[in-house]
């Protein structure tokens, strides 16, 4: 049963949060260099108070875990999972513990790294705090899973189509678009915004230190771009599910224009950071290229999703594959404007025969 639980809870969790893990990987292996990791681990061993920083990061991670699992386990395809309540409490927790362990793997791996250094530096106090927190968090996840699976569904079926603004025709239609981006979780939206802005800001502030090159700058933009994909996807999903706008007679061009307007409004913080913090030792000619790259990245992923399959599973997979291709391209020295150009051309040619366009023609 252990493998079954990992397969049905832990793996979908990683798939659904691919974008987040991309950013984490970038921050851990791209932005922060190995010597900086070691320096931090040594400092942590000497100053146990610093463990608070690590613990705060982990708490944020477990909030993400809680949000994600809550949605998954209360979806209608997971109703069958409630049968796990038929097991006694102890065997149930025992069965769920390996799943909790897999879910908590990223903080555990980093925790083990810090732990080794703390032990090496005889910083036993810091090591103790880390061990206790890791154990508590893993047991906590197992308990949460056990409780969530058996808790009532609140009379709601989370897979049911729900209208974002309680579908009131007297409301101006543009509020529907605004709420459509909020519909999939306000917290997720604001967290994504905060994360992408913080990431860009961090890259631009660190860039003048001389240790970072243009490729890393592009990688940062790539990840900031990926964090916006959900936004584009929400617009698209809104159009697909709530086709009342189409039925109301609003023309495709008109709707597209409004969506583009809302999208630009949504990415203004990132654009401001790119323009305002652009390092003076870099030619400003790179700015439009980088900004274009960000936008075209979103557009190409979006068109691909529309072509392949309209669900979040496809979104995660597509983001992953596209991200991997971009990563390799950047590491081989392809500049931002080159990628932007390629994306623009590719999106133009692939967005022709989508089901959405076909329905428009009909």
């Amino acid at each position, binding site marked *: 049963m252990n493998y*079954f639980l990992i*397969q*049905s809870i832990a793996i*979908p969790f990683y798939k659904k949060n691919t974008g987040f893990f991309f950013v984490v990987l970038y921050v851990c292996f791209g932005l922060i260099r190995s010597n900086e990791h070691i320096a931090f681990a040594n400092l942590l061993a000497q100053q146990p108070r610093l463990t608070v920083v690590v613990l705060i990061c982990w708490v944020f991670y477990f909030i993400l875990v809680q949000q994600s699992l809550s949605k998954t386990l209360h979806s*209608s395809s997971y*109703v*069958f999972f409630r049968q796990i309540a038929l097991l006694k409490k102890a065997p149930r927790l025992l069965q769920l513990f390996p799943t909790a362990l897999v879910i908590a793997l990223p903080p555990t791996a980093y925790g083990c790294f810090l732990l080794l250094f703390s032990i090496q530096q005889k910083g036993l106090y810091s090591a103790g705090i880390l061990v206790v927190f890791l154990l508590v968090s893993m047991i906590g996840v197992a308990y949460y899973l056990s409780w969530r699976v058996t808790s*009532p*569904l609140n009379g709601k079926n989370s897979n049911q189509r729900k209208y974002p603004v309680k579908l009131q025709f007297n409301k101006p239609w543009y509020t529907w678009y605004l709420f459509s981006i909020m519909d999939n979780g306000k917290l997720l939206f604001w967290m994504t915004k905060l994360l992408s802005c913080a990431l860009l800001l961090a890259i631009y502030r660190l860039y003048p230190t001389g240790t970072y090159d243009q490729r890393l700058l592009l990688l940062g933009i790539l990840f900031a771009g990926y964090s916006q994909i959900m936004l584009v996807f929400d617009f698209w999903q809104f159009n697909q599910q709530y086709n009342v706008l189409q039925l109301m007679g609003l023309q495709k061009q008109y709707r597209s224009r409004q969506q583009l307007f809302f999208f630009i409004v949504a990415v203004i913080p990132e654009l401001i950071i790119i323009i305002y913090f652009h390092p003076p030792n870099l030619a400003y000619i790179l700015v439009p290229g980088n900004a274009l790259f960000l936008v075209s990245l979103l557009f190409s992923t979006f068109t691909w999703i529309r072509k392949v399959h309209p669900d979040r*599973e496809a979104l995660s997979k597509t983001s992953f594959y596209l991200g991997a291709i971009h990563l390799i391209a950047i590491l081989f020295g392809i500049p931002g404007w080159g990628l932007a150009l390629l994306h623009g051309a590719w999106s133009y040619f692939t967005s022709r025969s989508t089901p959405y366009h076909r329905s428009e023609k009909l």
Partner: protein
Amino acid sequence: MFSIQSYKKSYNGRTILSIPNLNLTTGIYWIKGVNGSGKSTLFQSIAQYIPHQGYFTLDAIRGDLSSRIFLKKLSYSEAEPQFPPFLTQKELLLFTAQCRGIDFKLMQELAELFSTTDYWNNPVHTYSSGMLKKTGLIMALAGRQSLVILDEPFTTIDDTSRDLLKKHIRTSQQKDGTMFLISSHEDAQAYALPYTASYEIKNQQLILCK
């Protein structure tokens, strides 16, 4: 013996269904109602999926979420079962068998009976609605429960499976004394089942049909 006491379910202040008192002995019970009358809501409440007012008692055990014995005594098949698309039927049945503590062979026999074994290693997203329905039915029918709740069991499945299901319901009821609560928007006579009583949900009330 299954009883419902002071049951009431409301959504946004609007009462969907209210059952002050109902006692059922073993047998096959047919619950009829139009779409949206509250059949599935009642069944989900009995299976403790959704919160509600009032309580249910099965063989003198009061039903709530913490009552593992109560939950173990009943099984529920949804009208439109859904499963994670990447899982296979075999994995789902194995999970059910482990949770319910029943022999997997029983599951296998039922799967063979409903002719699903040819596809049971395929992921669920390749299944038709009939296959999904059969998967849900097998999960609910396997084992020896005191109460089996079937929400619109005869829709979407083929005629052969429908006959097999009817036969299985009859046998389980006669051999093991299992109680069945079956919902449908059609009349009980349409399916030629030896039902004990037929109820209809009308005006948020459960009314016994004559």
